[in-house]
């Protein structure tokens, strides 16, 4: 039996295909403005017997394709447990949400925290800030790692932080220092969320933001913990969905 999982996120759509407990294929594409068309596109390229949908677009997939659905919280717990059986805590920072999930030794969700409304402290925040500073999202983390001392960013709101950044630039602040300050501000927020759930066992850092080296280093330092990073941190939810069949 071939099982697939599709994770229709706010920024990217991820597909993972599993056969007999092995990942045989995966793909990531941009969600764009037409998640339905892009989901169809990615789905048409693979053969599978069963599929489960997750992510923001899960209801769309349920309605349009009749797929069963799970939340990305359950999917990330399952996916992380599959990749790292000793995992008890998942930190997932995606396009518009960040989540801390405490996972049981069987891969079940024991508790979780999630941002409740705006995209403060998420991948989208980093994207907007990278653009403001003239970096691509792929360069952003590397550039921040070059900083000497982080600038202080007080605002977590994307809109307010942008004006704060502009004001820092106009005061001649170094762009690398500002970049580091922005990364630092997300870390502070995430650490607050972790405090409410607790940090146990092996800690997995997943979601698109885990690809950012600066975020990985800052988080590990702040938590005094070694973080396990999946080879492809974005597809953990899609794997978990496939395992939820």
């Amino acid at each position: 039996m071939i099982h697939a999982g599709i994770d229709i996120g706010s920024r990217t759509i991820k597909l993972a295909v599993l056969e007999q407990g092995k990942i045989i294929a995966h793909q990531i594409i941009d969600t764009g403005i037409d998640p339905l068309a892009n989901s169809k596109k990615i789905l048409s390229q693979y053969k599978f017997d069963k599929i489960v949908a997750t992510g923001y677009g899960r209801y769309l997939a349920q309605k349009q394709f009749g797929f069963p659905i799970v939340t990305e919280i359950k999917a990330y717990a399952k996916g992380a447990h599959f990749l790292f059986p000793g995992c008890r805590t998942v930190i997932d920072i995606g396009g518009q949400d960040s989540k801390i999930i405490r996972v049981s030794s069987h891969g079940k969700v024991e508790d979780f925290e999630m941002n409740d409304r705006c995209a403060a402290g998420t991948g989208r925040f980093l994207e907007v800030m990278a653009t403001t500073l003239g970096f691509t999202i792929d360069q952003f983390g590397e550039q921040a790692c070059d900083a000497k001392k982080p600038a202080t960013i007080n605002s977590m709101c994307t809109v307010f932080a942008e004006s704060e950044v502009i004001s820092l630039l106009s005061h001649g602040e170094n762009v690398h220092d500002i970049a580091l300050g922005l990364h630092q501000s997300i870390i502070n927020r995430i650490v607050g969320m972790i405090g409410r759930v607790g940090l146990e066992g092996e800690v997995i850092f997943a979601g698109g933001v885990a690809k950012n080296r600066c975020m990985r280093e800052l988080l590990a330092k702040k938590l005094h913990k070694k973080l396990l990073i999946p080879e492809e941190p974005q597809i953990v939810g899609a794997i978990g969905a496939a395992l939820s069949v």
Partner: protein
Amino acid sequence: MENKYEKMWQDIGLDVPLHKELLESINKSFNATVGAQQNRPLGMKYFDQVLHESHGGRVAELIENKARGNKTVGTFCIYVPDEIVMAVDFIPMPLCGGTNFSVPYAEKTFPRDICPLVKSTLGLAFSKTCPYAPIKSMAVGETTCDAKKKTWEILAKKVNFHVMEVPQKKNDLDKKIWREEVEEFKNKIEALAERKVTPEKLRQNIKIMNDKRRALQKLGELRKHDPPPISGLDALVVMQGALNDEPVRFTQNLNKLNQELEERITQGISPFAKGVKRIMISGTPSVMGNWKVHSLIEKSGATIVVDESCTGTRYYENLVTENDNNIDKQLDALAERYMKINCSCFTPNDDRITDAVNKVEQFKVNGVVHYILQYCHTYNVETLKLDAEFKKKNIPSLKIVTDYSEEDIGQLRTRIDAFLERLE
């Protein structure tokens, strides 16, 4: 609605076109939540009607009553004893707003970062879309919340306003203060009515309010069944009606609904399957116009079996001692009953913790959703004490801090769905 009440609205000075927009916005939200449910009890028709007539027929009744010399008294909290108002044939009318539509009108002058309930209420008055604002003869505030306390000072400049001091502790001294506040309120009402609150009238109205509470308690009992014969959202609609409708008529119709629900239990009729996940809502009220979180939870496949809130058990639990014929004893009984409401403005508020834990057991609750209106610090912080107790009993909980807007629906759905997955 090509509306038969248009002239009435014009006469009382409402902004009729804007008021029409408000009704459309409320209807839209009603149809998407309450109206979208399947397998509702037939008796809900009456309570839907209470909602739909809340700006029409009910207002007309109040205006007629006023023509007979019987005034309307606006209230904002279930700590205000309705019985005293009713004892002079006045009508107590809760004025709390549950619609997001009016919030921007309050934000024109009031701070944005206060609770949505206060902003919605003020916005309705400021935008001339609250039909009760112009017809009420007095408004009664209380001291259960800081934003409200300061709001009263501003409203008192334009409206005949009385503030009841709800103490912040429940010691003997506080109970004494509250008893005096109840008496002062009685004097205030008598002065406005230019007639006395007689023991006979007070006795009658204590009975009327107790009957209403008994009917609501009965509804609460019926929801203990698995599966419950009524959705939590419909039970909320009933409760919201309790805060608007004429009490005797309301109780008659609720007793009828309760009968139907008993029949549904015998016949095994329910909007849900046996074994449905049972949720307790705990925290702040959901007043008319606000069906957001109840609807989200039930659309995700669980059901709400009890509301530990001011639009729930806090409103109808505990009766006032009946049959006293001495006004002082009656005021004692009223003060005692109302002081039992476990508002989070009290410190400590440990009776609420004990009560909430008991309810989890009595209603066989699988999970608790803390429903916190944004900026309600006391209910928000109190979740920590509640959770500490729930944890001991292995009861999972989810805290939702939200306002009346729809901007967080996506995140809320994910969080609620994930919470329900946890209960599997």
